[in-house]
């Protein structure tokens, strides 16, 4: 996967989060999904299902233990896509 793929994934995820988050909080790679964007656990799990379908990959939800920010999530997707 190339750097532009990475940026594309980041853009796609930020757009999707934009429609999930109710407040006007700006979404940046450093935004904390739960703390700042108030994505609750079920919303996050459902978002993972969507991501799996968008990229045709398996994203185990236990891998989310290491995910705090938007960038962490993009890194995880990137790693799985590149494997």
């Amino acid at each position, binding site marked *: 996967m190339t750097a532009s793929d990475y940026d594309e994934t980041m853009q796609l995820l930020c757009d999707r989060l934009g429609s999930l988050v109710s407040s006007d909080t700006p979404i940046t790679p450093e935004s904390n999904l739960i703390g700042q964007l108030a994505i609750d656990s079920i919303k996050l799990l*459902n978002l993972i*299902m969507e991501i*799996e379908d968008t990229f045709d990959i*398996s994203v185990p939800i*236990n891998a989310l233990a290491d995910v705090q920010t938007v960038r962490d999530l993009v890194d995880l997707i990137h790693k799985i896509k590149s494997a």
Partner: protein
Amino acid sequence: MNLLDKLDAAAAARKALLPNGVGAFGIPIEEVYSATEARIGDRRVLLLGTNNYLGLTFAPECLEAAHEALDEEGTGTTGSRMANGSYFGHRALEKEFAEFYKCDYGMVFTTGYQANLGTISGLAGRGDTVLIDGDSHASIYDGCILSGADIIRFKHNDMADMEKRLRRLGERTQTTLIIAEGIYSMLGDQAPLAEIVELKNKYDCTLLLDEAHSLGVLGETGQGLVEKTGLLKEVDFITGTFSKSLCSIGGYCVSNHPQLDQLRYISHPYIFTASPSPATIASARAALELLRNGTELRKQLWKNAMQLYKHLEETGYKLGPEPGPVIAAIVDSPQQALALWQGLLEHNIYVNLILPPAAPEGKSLVRCSINAAHTTEQMDYVGRAFAKLKPQIFG
């Protein structure tokens, strides 16, 4: 934010949902009169918020068995079976469960929660995969997390979605444990077991079915969804609980795989906890006997469930997809759910309030559980209370 601040933040979020100290969660029950009635505050209420599906909490056979065990074996076992030994009752109940399911192996756990924790974490491990329904009970999630396996969710009861995820796993399906529930605890709908079995065979996986809410409720002898669908032999592991239709405390797993026995030596939720007390085991054994022969109880339970489901449907409530002993009214906002729950309590009816994120799809639920001991008149009264409240709350 320190550890305690985080709890304060959670408490504030809960208060925002439940103002004025409304005690919808963990409501104090002052006195229990019967399988269907209790006192909450100064109200004598009709109980529709229990999982007492066969209404056996005061069955004389169970009371007598529990009293006798208490007198003969004492109040507790004071330790785990591994270290402190297995009582006659533990071993007998395991045999009776195995025999009930016509399986070779049976295992008893201290709770249903631990049955799932112990079985799932014993079967799957790091490098394996668990494929679970999106609406799975917390004990299934926790068991999966404890296992260290990769956890993949499929959309609730959506078989095309499940197959898509199986396909993505490639050869890893051989080390995949699929987990479903006989009856789902929130919406009361049943798993499409025939299709799950077909996919399990096609992709060469292992299948575990949690019959927590379907034991005693589905099938001629009450085995659950496996019996209703005739698919007992196709399910690798069945787990369940004594805490609902059996009116005791404890959990079980049955299987034809001899490897089940191995869990006794590796499963922490089995080993590192005290075994069920003699009285809980004795009443569960007596209740299992009543459950197996409980055709009449099941008939009454289903009659009650159909009556209330139909009544609420006609009144215009949005309900779970199919009738059954769990009937959930699905409402859009937590405020409406709370108003309905409170309104029912004012009619002396106690039901369960389920708010997000515990309810599926960000909805809120007012969940009723029906019982074989409820009467036709009681079901009618509940239906009329729901009908009266509808225009007041939903306009």
